[in-house]
């Protein structure tokens, strides 16, 4: 390969790229929060006796887990757009990742719920707790302990997936910023390598932070 690397040129634009990384973290975290809330309902739906609830939850999980995230994001932007429902790129990306997160997390949560002995629910109910109280105070806290590390993986995946925002016109996240800098200077390798390092750092920091939080919350 006949190419002279100019790392300085890329490093000078690091502040702009870090701003982009912040947007990436923002959209990934929000998508994770929304995904967790929806996934709790989906997990209960999957285990429910109600046929409609089970069908809706199963449908969501099937579509979210068996279609490419790229199509899901594209759908929220151009798919809804063709019905006159317009989301801006940030919202479409957020919706796409949250949809995907919810599908994957629902299955993780279902596994977590099934790992908790049903006798605990019966014991809680016989002590006079309502169904909601049983879930909130007995079942869910234990479930979140079981699924905490798989959830961390999903957060990392969420960060990496957010790079797909460029297909719906996202210009402010790390990939969007990188692409614009690339177009301006044609220093493709330098900028994309730097972006890869930043994504790696974000993923590693997420795992590290999750370990610390997990140690704080769940140590026995």
């Amino acid at each position: 390969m006949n190419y002279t690397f100019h790392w300085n040129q890329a490093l000078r634009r690091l502040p702009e790229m870090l701003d982009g990384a912040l947007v990436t973290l923002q959209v990934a975290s929000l998508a994770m929060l929304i995904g967790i809330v929806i996934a709790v309902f989906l997990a209960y739906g999957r285990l429910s006796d109600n046929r409609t609830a089970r069908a809706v939850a199963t449908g969501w999980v099937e579509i979210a887990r068996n279609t490419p995230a790229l199509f899901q994001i594209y759908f929220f932007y151009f798919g809804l757009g063709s019905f006159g429902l317009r989301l801006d790129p940030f919202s479409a990306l957020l919706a796409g990742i949250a949809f995907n997160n919810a599908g994957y997390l629902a299955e993780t949560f279902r596994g977590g719920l099934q790992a908790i002995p049903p006798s605990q629910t019966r014991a809680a109910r016989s002590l006079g707790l309502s169904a909601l109280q049983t879930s909130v105070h007995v079942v869910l806290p234990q479930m979140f302990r079981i699924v905490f590390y798989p959830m961390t993986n999903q957060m990392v995946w969420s960060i990496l997936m957010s790079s797909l925002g460029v297909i719906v016109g996202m210009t402010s996240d790390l990939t969007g910023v990188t692409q614009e800098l690339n177009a301006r200077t044609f220093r493709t390798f330098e900028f994309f390598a730097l972006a890869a390092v930043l994504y790696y750092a974000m993923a590693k920091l997420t795992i590290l932070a999750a370990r610390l939080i997990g140690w704080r919350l769940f140590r026995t």
Partner: protein
Amino acid sequence: MKILKLFAAGAALAMLAVPAQADRLDDIIASGKLRCAVTLDFPPIGMRDANNEPVGFDVDYCRDLAKALGVEAEIVETPFPDRIPALISGRADIGVASTSDTLERAKTIGFSIPYVAYNMVVLTKEGSGINAYEDLKNRRVGSTSSTFEALALEADMKKWADPKGAFQAYQNQADVFLALDQGHIEATVVTSTVASDAVKSGNYAGFKIVDEAPYETDFTSLITLREDFGLINYLNLFVNRQVRSGRYAELWGKWVGGPVPDLTVPGVYR
């Protein structure tokens, strides 16, 4: 004896070193193949016909060049953002892909003299209330990532910094038109050739060209690696010859029509 051995070793080294110095022009002639990176998402300059074959101004231009070199042309489809990786990774020898010749980019790659020039227009939908370029400042606008007009429009949107204004960059021209059609964006700035092609195609209801964008003329060049001077020299002469022989005007008439863009800048050499 010793001196003779040294001499032989030196000669051997020199022979090893020579092929490594060969210009890409030699590689093309030796391989009998010219691989052109062409963007096929830029009608009528580069596109696919009904049989999915690459056609357009740039495709013909590449074939003319291959013919002049006495080699076979191979079209390597390359989206705008991938032009440089395609060259550097060796997937293509040259880029025939309307690359705007900015000084910033010339730090990285080698440009020929301009082979075609474009003017930019504002494309919007009927009823948008946009009548001039200045009307874009508080609107949602977008363009194709990595193009001259995207960089120029984004720079102006940043300069105007109107809180209601927003700029979006899409991965290809088709997505820009889809976004405009669906109302994600209210207008785009695009080369006049692409704009009139979109309006003529009848695929998009209500598209209309309202104004010329007040940018400098967008001179675009053939590109190759910066250090392949032999090839760049050849490309320069080829561009000159295409104009001299009338082939440039002929190709422009065949694919685009209307006045043929002037490739010279008054008052300066090159």
